[in-house]
Structure formats: C-alpha cells, structure tokens
C-alpha cells in the first residue's frame, strides 16, 4: 500500500494498541510504544521518496499528502528528536501512572506533526494541527496540576490561533474553490488587497501562537513546565517548529510576493526581536529550571522568527538552521532537567545544587547544549547566530542587530545560571545519595549533544537540506555563495572557515590541559566544596554556603523598569472582563416565567412594528 498511508496507520494503530497494552504487560507496552514511534520513522526515511503522494477523499474534499524537501527538513527534527525522546521517555516514565495516556498522546503528537509536514491541502493540515493541539493539551494536564489555569489557557490560545487559520482556509476556499496549498500560492498574487492582507495575517496568528511569539506566548511557560519532561523536549523542540514551518511557508510563498510584504516583515522581525529580549530577561529571573528553559525557548524562537521574517536568503538559512539547532539543544536540555528531576525529585535551583560529580554524563550533555545555546564556537549555535547577525547587517536592520545581540549577551546569564544552579556550586549533604540517570536517559542526551559538535564544524551537512527545502519553496540555490561544507559566508565576501578553527581550539585546549595536569593535577587531592578560601574561618560541614537566591540581583536592579509590565496580567484582566460580560448575559434568563412571557410579547410587538423592513 501507499507508504504514506502505511505510516499513518502504523502510528494510529500503534497508539491505540499501546494504550490498551498497559492492561496486559508494562514491558510489552513500552516495547509497543517504541515500535510505534521508531518503525514509522524508519519507514519514512527508507520508503518515502520526495514527490510521492497519497490521497484520501472525504466529504467532497480530497486530502492530499506528499513529501517535498521542505517537509523533509522538518521531519528530521520531528522524527529524529521524537525517536530520541521516545527512548528517553521509556526510562523517564518508569513507575509513573497512566502510562497508556502518555504513550498514546506522545505517539499522536508525532503522528500529527508528520501529518502536518506531509499535508499538501489545507484541510488535512488543519486536521493534523488540531490533533496536535489536543494531544499536547492532554499532556499539559497530565500531572493534574493547575489544569484549569494552565491547560485551558494553552488550549484557548491554540484554539484562537487555529480558528484564525480556519477562517483563512475557508476564505481561500471561497476564492480559489480548492483547498490545495498549491492553488493558494498560485492565486495569491492576483487576489484583491484586502484578501492579500487578511489571509497571511490570520495564518500568521495561528502559527505565531504555536511559535510563542509575543504577545501570544503567555501559554508557553506554564505549558512547558507542566508537562512531563520527556514530552516537553518534543513539545518545545518539535511542536513549536511547526509554527516556524507554517510561518516560513507563509512568508516565502505569500508575503514575499507582494510589495506590501515589507510591512509584514518589519513588524514580525521586530516582534521576534522583542520576544527575544523579554523572554531572555524573564528567563534570567526564574528559579525553577523548567520555567527558565520555557522562557528561554520563547526567546530562542524570537531569533528564529526574526530570521525568517527578514526574508533574505542568508536570513532564512539562519532562521532554519537555528530552528534545527534549537530543537537539538532545547530537547537535550529538557531531557537534562527530566534526569535531574527523576534523580533528585526537584527542579528548583534553590533546592538542589552541586550535582556535577554525581551526574557527570548529564552535566556533559548540559554543558554542550548550553554552549550551543549561547552560540559559542565551535558548536552549532554559533553558526546559526553568525548567519543571523550577518543577515541582519547585510539587510540594513541595524537596530535589530543591537537588540538581538543584547538578548544574546543576556542569554549568557541564564546559561550560566542553569549550569551553576544544578551542577556547580556547593555540594550539600542531602544530595549525596544522588546517582547518575539510567542509561536509556543518558544515551539520547549525549548523542544529541555530540551532534551539535558535528554541526558546528560541518554546518554544510545541515545547510544542504535547508537549501533544498528553500529551493522547493521557490528560492534560488545558495550553495557556494553562502556556504560550503565547512565554511560559512555572507553576501559581502566575509567568511569563517570552521574546520581549522575547531582543530586549533582542540589543540590549544589539550595543550594547556596537559600542561596543567602534568604540572598541577597529579599530586593534588580532591576536596569538597566546603574546603574553600574564606579568610581564615573554616566552614563547618553543615553550614549552608549555597548561593542561589536572587542570583542576578544587580542585573535586575538595572533592568527593573522593563520587567514591571506583564503581558500575562493583561490577558488575565481581559479574561475577567469577559467573564463579567458573560455574567450579564446570563442574567437575561431571569428564571421568572412571566418575564419570559414578556420577552415573547415584546418580540412579537417589535417584529410587527419593524417586520416590513426586516422580512422583505
């Protein structure tokens, strides 16, 4: 049968079977889960070729699925990260309750994302988009905490975005008569101006909610921190990229084709920049690792959105490269937090610290991911940031460069806070029993981290599929004038040759490490963190010297005016206002029978008076 349909059936069938297998045997359930995620992924890459399509006809609408290069690029994130997260999840969720629900929703999320990437018509796109929304919603409320405030807030925002998209879809249908994306792209340049503006605005609203762009990002911190960490790596790594996927398509195929597109691009680019700054500032403030990473995700997505909105080739390459890198390192970081949570029971920096010697592999993965997040060479994040800055400068967005750069510098603060808070700092006695996380959790983390190393030195490996994807959307080939396998260039002829840099860095690093080891390390003994220089007063064993409260107090004193306003408060007030309005509506039904009778009579009278105008 058609491989596309095979993949969907395997996913769906696997999900249902896994849900019910829990009654029989837990091990069987875990194995079925892994099979349901890995087998379709394997089929995807081996059986499915570019251009192969499948259709399914319902209700007069033909659902159309096929794979193009752009979808293939994002499938790397979805299926790659999904597979790693699935392996991680089996170990993370051991012993937890309601496993069946978790596995079911996990598989459905992966399936719906794959479906989105394969969809060539808008209805199928929307169907999978909604399935993705409600399966991730069920994960957000999985632990049963704060289901009403966080879960429903997430769903409402997602629904607003999705319904905006639905409105655009039916608008498109009324103009072109078909639901195919191809037809939309072809008909777009000749539509009237009102439509040309509204359709992208509505579509972008839908995508911006998922990509957590300001001011539609308020669901993200709660939703990311409330879901189980094994799922959050997929949630933040892959689901948000679906928004990016949609935005890229809208920008490249629609907005860039009309002259008014420049307004869209500027506004969205600045929104991305502001998102980056505000997200970073709030991330620095957090004491809970989950919230910190959640805000950090919002900020990183800001970079990606800026890159895509700018619209030059280099900017698009930068945005998409950063998207893939973000999936890698954010997915790994959430796995790290999950590992710490599983081993210690808490994710709050003020409660746990000093885990580096107890969880070395977790630390290694975290270290590499943080370095990639910060954008420091020789890891992959640097390549993306470099291309982003170059694209901003070469396309004359001078102030935006400063904004993004500020956000990037401030990001160092929360990067350090993350590493210091969990792994460095004082080692307290209450955590001396902590062991390294199980292998099934550590291996995916380490694999993903090492991947960042590779991509940092040979970005061409990733830039090649990105290039193909962009060409599939209609862009010109950028090979050799913007990148080669290990060289990144900008339009002005400046470039960075990455491979020798990596070798030099490793060489120097090893040289000095060897120097220090030979001369310093061998005859030294390890001492605990209580044995520190403290002006003669020797700290006792149970004295608490951990520094984690108010970690960046001077910085916050400096940026205090910016942090006073919260968008969340605005939404809360809006919600309360609406509830008051609804209360008023409710009171129309007074409960008094005579009042209802009066309503009827009043209705008749009004209609009789104005009937001629109303009914003719």
């Amino acid at each position, binding site marked *: 049968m058609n491989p596309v349909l095979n993949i969907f059936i395997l996913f769906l069938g696997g999900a249902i079977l896994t849900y019910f297998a829990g009654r029989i045997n837990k091990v069987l359930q875990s194995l079925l889960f892994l099979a349901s995620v890995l087998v379709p992924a394997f089929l995807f890459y081996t059986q499915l070729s570019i251009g192969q399509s499948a259709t399914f006809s319902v209700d007069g609408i033909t659902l159309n699925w096929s794979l193009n290069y752009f979808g293939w690029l994002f499938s790397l994130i979805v299926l790659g990260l999904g597979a790693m997260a699935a392996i991680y999840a089996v170990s993370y969720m051991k012993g937890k309750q309601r496993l069946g629900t978790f596995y079911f929703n996990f598989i459905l999320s992966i399936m719906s994302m794959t479906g989105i990437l394969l969809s060539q018509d808008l209805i199928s796109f929307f169907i999978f988009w909604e399935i993705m929304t409600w399966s991730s919603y069920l994960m957000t409320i999985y632990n049963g905490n704060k289901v009403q405030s966080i879960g429903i807030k997430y769903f409402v925002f997602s629904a607003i975005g999705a319904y905006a998209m639905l409105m655009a879809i039916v608008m498109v249908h009324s103009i072109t008569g078909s639901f195919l994306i191809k037809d939309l792209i072809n008909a777009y340049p000749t539509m009237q101006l009102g439509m040309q503006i509204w359709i992208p605005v509505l579509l972008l609203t839908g995508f911006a909610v998922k990509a957590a762009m300001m001011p539609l990002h308020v669901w993200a911190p709660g939703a990311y921190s409330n879901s189980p960490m094994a799922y959050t790596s997929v949630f933040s790594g892959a689901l948000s990229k679906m928004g990016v996927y949609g935005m890229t398509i809208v920008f490249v195929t629609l907005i860039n084709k009309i002259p008014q597109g420049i307004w869209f691009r500027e506004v969205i680019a600045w929104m991305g920049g502001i998102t980056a700054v505000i997200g970073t500032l709030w991330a620095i403030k957090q004491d809970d690792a989950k919230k910190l990473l959640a805000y950090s995700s919002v900020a990183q997505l800001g970079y990606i959105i800026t890159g895509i909105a700018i619209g030059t080739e280099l900017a698009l390459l930068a945005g998409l490269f950063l998207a893939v890198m973000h999936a890698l390192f954010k997915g790994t970081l959430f796995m790290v937090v999950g590992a710490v949570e599983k081993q210690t029971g808490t994710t709050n920096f003020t409660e746990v610290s000093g885990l580096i010697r107890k969880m070395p592999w977790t630390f290694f993965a975290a270290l590499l991911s943080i370095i990639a997040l910060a954008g420091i060479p020789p890891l992959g994040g640097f390549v993306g940031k470099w291309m982003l800055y170059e694209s901003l400068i070469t396309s004359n967005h001078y102030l935006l460069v400063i904004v993004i750069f500020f956000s990037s510098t401030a990001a160092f603060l929360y990067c350090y806070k993350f590493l210091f808070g969990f792994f460095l*700092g004082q080692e307290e006695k209450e955590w001396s029993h902590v062991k390294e996380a199980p292998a099934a959790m550590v291996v995916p983390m380490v694999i993903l981290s090492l991947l960042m190393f590779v991509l940092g030195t040979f970005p061409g490996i990733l830039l090649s599929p990105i290039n193909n994807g962009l060409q599939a959307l209609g862009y010109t080939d950028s090979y050799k004038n913007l990148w080669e396998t290990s060289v990144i260039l900008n339009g002005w002829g400046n470039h960075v040759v990455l491979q020798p840099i990596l070798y030099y860095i490793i060489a120097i690093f090893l040289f000095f490490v060897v120097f220090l080891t030979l001369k310093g390390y061998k005859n030294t003994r*390890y001492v605990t963190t209580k044995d520190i220089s403290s002006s003669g007063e020797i700290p006792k064993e149970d004295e608490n010297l951990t520094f984690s409260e108010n970690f*960046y107090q001077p910085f916050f004193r400096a940026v205090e005016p910016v942090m006073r306003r919260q968008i969340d408060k605005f939404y809360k007030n809006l919600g309360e206002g609406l509830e008051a309005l609804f209360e008023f509506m409710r009171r129309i039904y007074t409960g008094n029978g005579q009042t209802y009778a009066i309503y009827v009579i009043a209705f008749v009278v009004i209609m009789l008076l104005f009937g001629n105008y109303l009914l003719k």
Partner: protein
Amino acid sequence: MESVLYNILGAVATFLLAFVVGMIYGGLNRKITARVQNRKGPPFYQNFIDAMKLASKRSAIHHGIMQHFGPAFIMVSSVMSLMVVPVLTHNQWFPNLNFHGDLIFLLYIMVFGPLGMALGAGQTGNPNSAIGVTRGLSLMTGFEIPWVMALVALMIQYHTTSIVDLMNVQIQSGTWLMFSSPFAFIAAVMAMLGMFRYSPFDIVGAPAELASGPISENGGKYLFVMMSAGSVFAFVKLTLYVDLFMGGADNLVILLVKTFVLYLIPVLYSLTTVRYRTEHAIRWFWGWPSFFGLLAILQAVFFK
C-alpha cells in the same frame, strides 16, 4: 607541510610576543599607579617574577575537573582571539589566521573564555566566586552594547565584517577610522573601560569584598595560566583597537607605541574614579556610551 609548520611557528611567536608585551604592560600599570599615588611601586617586570613564582608552585588540592578545565578554557579564548586579530600587517614573521574568521566570530570567542573560567570557578563552590561571576556577566551585558554598536557602525559604513578589510580601508583612504568614524571610536573606548575591568568597573573582582571574585580559589599553576591568559587578552584587545581605529602597525615599534598610548586611557581613568556598583555600571553603559554608539550608527547610515 612546510607552510603548516611555518604557521605553527608563527603562531607560537605571536603568542610569546603577546605574552611578553601583556605582562610588561601590566607591570607598567602597576608602576604608573604607584607613582601617581606617590609611592615607588614594583619594577615594570614584576609580573614576570610573579608568573615564575606562581608557575613554580604546586597546588595541594583541587575541586574537580571543571576547575581544572577553567584556566584552559580562558587560554583557548585568548589564543584563538590572538589568532584572529592581525598583529602586524605586511610582515612575514607574524602570519595571522585572520582570513579564517571575522569580527562576529571574534566577539563570540572573546566571551568563551570568561564563561569557561566562570564554570571552573563555579565548581569550587565558593560563594564569592559565584557572586563575582554574576557581577561579571551582568557587567558584560552593559559594555557589550556600546561595543557592538560601534562595531556595527563600522560594518555598515564599510560593508565588511572582516578586520583585514577594515585595515585596508584605512590604508587606502589614508585616514584612520578614529577620525572618519569618531563616534564609533568614542563608544568603543568607553566600552573598553568595561572590558579591562579597571576602576570604575572593577567590582567583578573586588579584592576586599569578594576575595578577587572568580579567581579566588585558584593558585599556583592555575593562577599562572589565568594571569598569562589575562595578559595575552589585554594585548589582543589593544591590538584590535589599534587595527580597527588607528590604522594597524607595520612594525613592532609602532605597534608598541600605539597600543601603549591606547592603554594609558583605562589606566589613567582608573586612577581618578571610584568603583561603581554593578547596576550603576550597567546603567552607565546604557547611557552615554550607547548614545555615542547610536550616533555612530546614524553617522554610518547617513554619511556613507
């Protein structure tokens, strides 16, 4: 093969030059400070003596592997920055790797070191180190803004992000960028005050308050490596400024003269000011220096 060997020899020679010059400048700083404060002060080669003393000491204890890596990270950062900044133009004895990277790469590799050292300091568990690191990182968000504004202004004005190209522009037009992009120069110099972490921005390693902050747990060889890295880094920054704003240098003497003149700015300024608190320092950097940076960008946009 021969060229690789040649390159490596050149790199080592550059490193030694940077080391020596950096140390001497550090010593001169101490001498000048002392003279201004009406005392004799240590000899200008004092830093070498200190370095040798530190190198000959052995540490008895260590706090773990990150502390061990910390100095190595900062050395990597210093040396890679050195590789990217052209030291002497048109000189065969000091080949540079500048064709491998550009300003943005330099910006990021310069940050790599302090972060690595911060990680190393973190593992010691000393709260003073942690406080020092947080102050240092916060301060960085301060001075990076005018610094990046100045660099962006230069990049816009001359359509390049490569240091070599900016030097060539100066050679071709005959005027230093200090004069053709004055606001950028002013903003960059103000940022430099923060980079050197001399007074008034020395809160990061405030000796009396934080026991020198991030470096408080390091002694012996670790401190030696850090000190050397610091000196090399100082040299790199000065050379970078000379290359960008003062036309580069053809031979060693001119280079030394220009870098020393530039170095006098933070040294003398530090003698006349008191220490700012971190939030004041950050706010100061976002004030006048950023204003000049903004002027620099405006000038670059409108007076291309």
